[in-house]
């Protein structure tokens, strides 16, 4: 049985005193009673989940019933189950050296500290494993940030190209029909690719791209690309957020997809008969804030699931540090330090 434990130095928060309840549960005495997931309790939990057919089938209620532990509330189980489920997300290569469940960390901690007879090397090994786990989480976080940064940069690239092109062409309105006549076969490729969320890119194609000479007409180009309200006719980039809107991966995948499902790319991209049916993301399209007059173009760019993706993705991103999809789709979801309202823009046009 596990009795009161000294607070482990590994804890990220202060551990108040623990008391052992009648049912064998170890609860803490701080105002918000926290349940200590001891080894034994966790094992019972795992057993129960297994009995119920796995973390996806099991629900807190049923687990509670199966476990039959007094004092265990749905609240406890809910959060523990969620952690367990997340931990079960297969990062296939990590199986060998990662312990994915947060409660498993407790497990280690408690077993490490409770048994004084643990050999030193075992402790070291466990610590090594924990270290690796933390490192992996770090890597995930970083990868996500970096991918976003890259996506953001690319987005500015595209917008700039679009702007300059628009400037060259001196067109205020674009004819949708014009696109059809262009005969640029690759536009078809873009269309087929679904919502290629580079409105800039699509614009480029519209203009035939044969006068693209971005060398001239760069009036403060570098900063313009970052201006949310730059009056370009690049479509889809209507979100007020500085790097908002597009630049996402043209890959539309349902947010329900787990990472492993992404391997079967076809599955999620199959319903693609109508290239403009971009609602692969199963969420209701929010009312999008389009600043410009897009009447003629609206049907071509009817989908901006990217925006929808923003809303949901933000939450998910906050909720789990795990990497879901570090694709450029997240480009617009800037890390907070970048995306705060006032960008530290070098207004004094720094041209190295």
């Amino acid at each position, binding site marked *: 049985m596990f009795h009161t434990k000294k607070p482990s130095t590994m804890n990220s928060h202060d551990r108040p005193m623990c008391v052992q309840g009648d049912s064998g549960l170890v609860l803490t005495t701080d105002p918000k009673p926290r349940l200590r997931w001891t080894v034994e309790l966790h094992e019972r939990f795992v057993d129960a989940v297994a009995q119920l057919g796995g973390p996806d089938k099991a629900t807190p209620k049923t687990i509670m019933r199966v476990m039959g532990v007094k004092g265990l509330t749905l609240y406890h189980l809910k959060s523990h189950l969620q952690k367990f489920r997340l931990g079960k997300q297969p*990062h*296939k290569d990590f199986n060998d050296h990662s312990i994915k469940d947060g409660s498993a960390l407790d497990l280690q901690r408690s077993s490490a500290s409770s048994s004084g007879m643990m050999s030193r090397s075992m402790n070291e090994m466990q610590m090594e494993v924990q270290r*690796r786990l933390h490192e*992996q989480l*770090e*890597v995930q976080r970083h*990868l996500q940030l*970096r*991918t976003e*940064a*890259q996506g*953001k*940069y*690319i987005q500015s*690239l*595209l917008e700039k*190209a679009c702007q300059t092109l628009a400037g060259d062409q001196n067109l205020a309105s674009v004819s949708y029909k014009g696109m059809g006549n262009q005969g*640029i*076969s*690759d536009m*078809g*490729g873009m269309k*087929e690719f679904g919502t*290629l969320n*580079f409105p800039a890119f699509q614009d*480029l*194609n519209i203009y035939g*791209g*044969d006068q*693209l000479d*971005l060398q001239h007409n760069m009036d403060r180009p*570098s*900063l313009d*690309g970052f201006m949310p309200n730059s009056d370009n006719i690049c479509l889809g980039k209507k979100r007020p957020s*500085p790097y908002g809107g597009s630049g996402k*991966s*043209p*890959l539309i995948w349902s947010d329900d997809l787990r990472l*492993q499902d*992404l*391997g079967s*790319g*076809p599955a999620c*991209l*199959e319903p*693609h008969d109508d290239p403009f049916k971009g609602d692969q993301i199963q969420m209701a399209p929010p009312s999008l804030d389009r600043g410009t007059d897009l009447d003629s173009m609206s049907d071509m760019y009817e989908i901006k699931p990217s925006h929808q993706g923003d809303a949901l993705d933000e939450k998910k991103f906050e909720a789990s540090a795990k*990497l879901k*999809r*570090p*694709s*450029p789709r997240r480009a617009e979801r800037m*890390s907070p*330090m*970048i995306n705060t309202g006032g*960008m*530290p823009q*070098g207004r004094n046009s*720094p*041209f*190295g």
Partner: protein
Amino acid sequence: MTMAIDGAQFELELDFSGYSSTTTTATISTENDHDRGGNWNGWSPMVDWETLSGPHDDFQDLIDSMMDDGALMNQSIRLTPDTSNSMSASGTVIVDEETSCGDDLKGLRLVHLLIAAAEALTGLNKNRDLARVILVRLKELVSPNDGTNMERLAAYFTDALQGLLEGTGGIHSNKHHSETNNGPYHHHHRDDPQQRHHQSDVLGAFQLLQDMSPYVKFGHFTANQAILEAVADDRRIHIVDYDIMEGIQWASLMQALVSRKGGRPTPHLRITALSRSGSSRRFIGTVQETGRRLVAFAASIGLPFSFHQCRLDSDETFRPSALKLVRGEALVMNCMLHLPHFSYRAPDSVASFLSGAKTLNPRLLTMVEEEVGPIGDGGFVGRFMDSLHHYSAFYDSLEAGFPMQGRARGLVERVILGPRISWSLARIYRVRGEEACPWGVWLAAEGFQPVKVSFANHCQAKLLLGVFNDGYRVEELASNRLVLGWKSRRLLSASIWTSPSDPDL
């Protein structure tokens, strides 16, 4: 597809990483992963060289014999004693089988023709006329826009061979540099202006490649992670980039620099981009534009940054003395070749960069290049086949992830992979007879010291791949080298080095 079909296909497929999307890694006769470079002799197609004893005006018979489906079928079936069993076992799906068999047969046929053409071009029995005829026939059979992977791939290879045949595949003389090195702009085989790649196409294709595959990100991120680790405690960092293109690689590095943990102050970053004199039309703009963009980006995230440009000589030689160095800065040399970037770079130029790097004693040198198969003694044809295998894997990897987006893939193939194939073959053609070794090997020979790939770096690569189709894999082939591969084929190698003489040690 039923298992029976898979079984049948298994036997019929050549091991060109499968030009269908099955996941078999079928090998035929003696060809296997380890052997693929050297054993092409076993595959010398059904050209009966003895019959070419006298002058032939018309090779049609010869071609027809190669085209004979019966012959092909026999040969294929010969390799697969079980085929008849598996075929008869699934009576209800005969129709499907025939179609896919048909595809495979056609693919086989194309491969045979290509190899024959390659042989005719350079083999022991060189015969340019034969080659020409074969290529004509090939052109009738393939199109870069339709058909299976193999067919489209064959189209580009046919073009490339055509270029070699006509001698316009010449990236030989310096004189042609300005034309040929326009990269995607000037597919020099075609004078047809329609074939010039529009900037929008180029940008779009690159973006698509980025999104559909991990190739670009793998190279960039692996290099960046190594750089971050090497300069972890430095206040001033100077990166010399051989081929900056649009500067995309540096966006994520910059972001990582401003979010360095551990209470370290944000360092000052300086990037010097090497630019080619002469034609400065690049991807979507010039190096200066890239610089401006980077400056703006850095400003937006609050990174102290400055950008410089350094011109290469007219023959693209790098002169270290042209660099402006600052005392106390950590010097990093960055070299992205082939994919993830895709402009043509003359080997001499690259060599000059790397040798120059040596004299500068950089803290780190990052190198990303394509991974070639073992270079046997197969000569041109052997390396041709290796190249076929290589690009076939690319095509497959794109298709596996995005089977429905054929036209998008077609764009990437046309703008990026097609030209690469031409350059690749031209290079192989030029140096046939010599050993052209990968740059990693060259660096080691020059005395550069390997730098270990960290756990975090490897981890990052695996994570990155996890987002894409699970046919990708990353291997750590050496302590300082990560290799990205598709199924059984290694495609891209990222290696990290430090200067030979490290005074800190």
